[in-house]
């Protein structure tokens, strides 16, 4: 379980002024819950994710995972970035094994796990290939395997499909849901696609812009397993409508 309690994060801007990226954010994410973060650009979604990852420290407030304060990156957290950022000099298998290797836990069990994961995402047979031989979608699949190889309980995904084309994006969205069903974990998923967020999440956290605050948490009532055909359903419509209202509400009122 991830708990953010009164978290504020300020950065020092170039001029020396302090800029608040997140202001007084409190959020609880239950074990094995799938939560998406959406909001306009500059609302601090990625900052929030990096705070949970332990890559940044909050200016005020605390982030805890399973009761212990996150002060540095934890071994039970996996992270997927927008770009696959695979190491160009390493094979797909070595890329997936990179986190366990860095943690000094590279053994036969880890290798077996990596091969299992690659099979799970449909990359069996590509272990010995180099990243440049893979398509963007395949690279990101390998990136997901890399985030899962040390069997984390928390998976953080920072716009993982942002750089992919629309079709690959839908495919991978379904894929992530399948992985999550087969190997439940707590997932915090940043995206700026509202339909993607609604389809994936148990709850969608909507953030407001500068400084980022939680505008509302929208619960998605769609039954699982889900697929893209559900976009027509009324639960889907009402959730996306509510999120759009929260994000664009003010702006629309002004132009109307």
């Amino acid at each position, binding site marked *: 379980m991830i708990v953010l309690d009164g978290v504020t994060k300020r950065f020092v801007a170039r001029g020396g002024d302090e800029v608040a990226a997140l202001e007084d954010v409190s959020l609880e994410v239950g074990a094995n819950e799938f939560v998406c973060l959406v909001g306009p650009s500059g609302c601090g979604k990625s900052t929030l994710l990096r705070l949970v990852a332990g*890559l940044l420290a909050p200016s005020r407030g605390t982030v805890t995972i399973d009761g212990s304060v996150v002060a540095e990156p934890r071994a039970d*957290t996996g*992270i997927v970035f927008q770009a696959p*950022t695979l190491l160009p000099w390493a094979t797909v298998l070595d890329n997936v094994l990179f986190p366990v290797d860095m943690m000094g836990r590279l053994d036969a069990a880890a290798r077996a796990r990596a091969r299992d994961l690659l099979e799970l995402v449909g990359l069996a047979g590509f272990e010995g290939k180099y990243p440049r031989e893979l398509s963007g979608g395949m690279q990101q699949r390998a990136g997901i395997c890399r985030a899962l190889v040390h069997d984390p309980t928390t998976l953080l995904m920072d716009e993982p499909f942002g750089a992919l084309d629309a079709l690959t994006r839908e495919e991978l969205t379904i894929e992530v849901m399948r992985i999550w069903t087969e190997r439940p974990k707590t997932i915090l998923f940043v995206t700026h696609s509202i339909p993607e967020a609604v389809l994936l999440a148990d709850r969608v956290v909507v953030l407001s812009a500068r400084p980022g605050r939680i505008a509302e948490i929208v619960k998605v009532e769609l039954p699982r397993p889900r697929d893209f055909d559900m976009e027509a359903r009324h639960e889907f419509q009402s959730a996306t409508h509510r999120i759009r209202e929260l994000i664009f509400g003010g702006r629309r009122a002004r132009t109307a």
Partner: protein
Amino acid sequence: MLALWELACRLFAIPAYLVPRPTAIFADTAALAGPVAIHTLATTKTVLLGFATSLIVSLPLAVLLTASPLIANSIYPLLVLTQSIPKVALAPILVVIFGSNELPRVVVTFLVAFFPLVLSIVAGITAVPPELIELGRACRASRWRELWRIRLPYAVPFVFSGLKAAITLSVVGAVVGEFVNADQGLGYLIVTSTAFFKVPLAWGALLLLSLLGIVLFQAVVIVEQVFFPWSVSADKPTL
């Protein structure tokens, strides 16, 4: 091209001291094949020693330069200073300091060749995408491991573009060194043969020097292709 050169020399009766005919160059050089081979070997030795020194010095220097802005700010002006000194002017002074032997020539070669190498390695180490650094941190890698497992491998394509510049500059540096003080080498051969008006031989040495440059450059290319095949096709961010 050689045929055209030969033809032009004969047609327009260009005197050999201006532009000798290729056949004359070949004949005069081949007549002294033994000594010329020794001269070529001597120059190759100087080039390789200077080139190796450049690599050995540049790598840790580049790592040091990227370690902190404070170190970078104190070392960079010194580096630029070494580059602003004309090497031809420095060479005789180096001979006085190090004596009349191989060392001043290697030092001149090193001084000519190392700077672009340092710059490209620094560019490589700092061009690592921030996500890769975050990945390293998320895997709780130490700074040393980050350097060794992420930054330096990432810099390999940059190192090789620096090495390609350095190897050609090493040939230039070695010849500069030989002009000032040497008892053998292709640069020495050019100086002595022109002094005795053996112009075709000087041209032969010149052609051998460019051949040496091409061969060494290709050797670097082959080393990259064989040991770092991923580096050859890697997307290099524009510098």
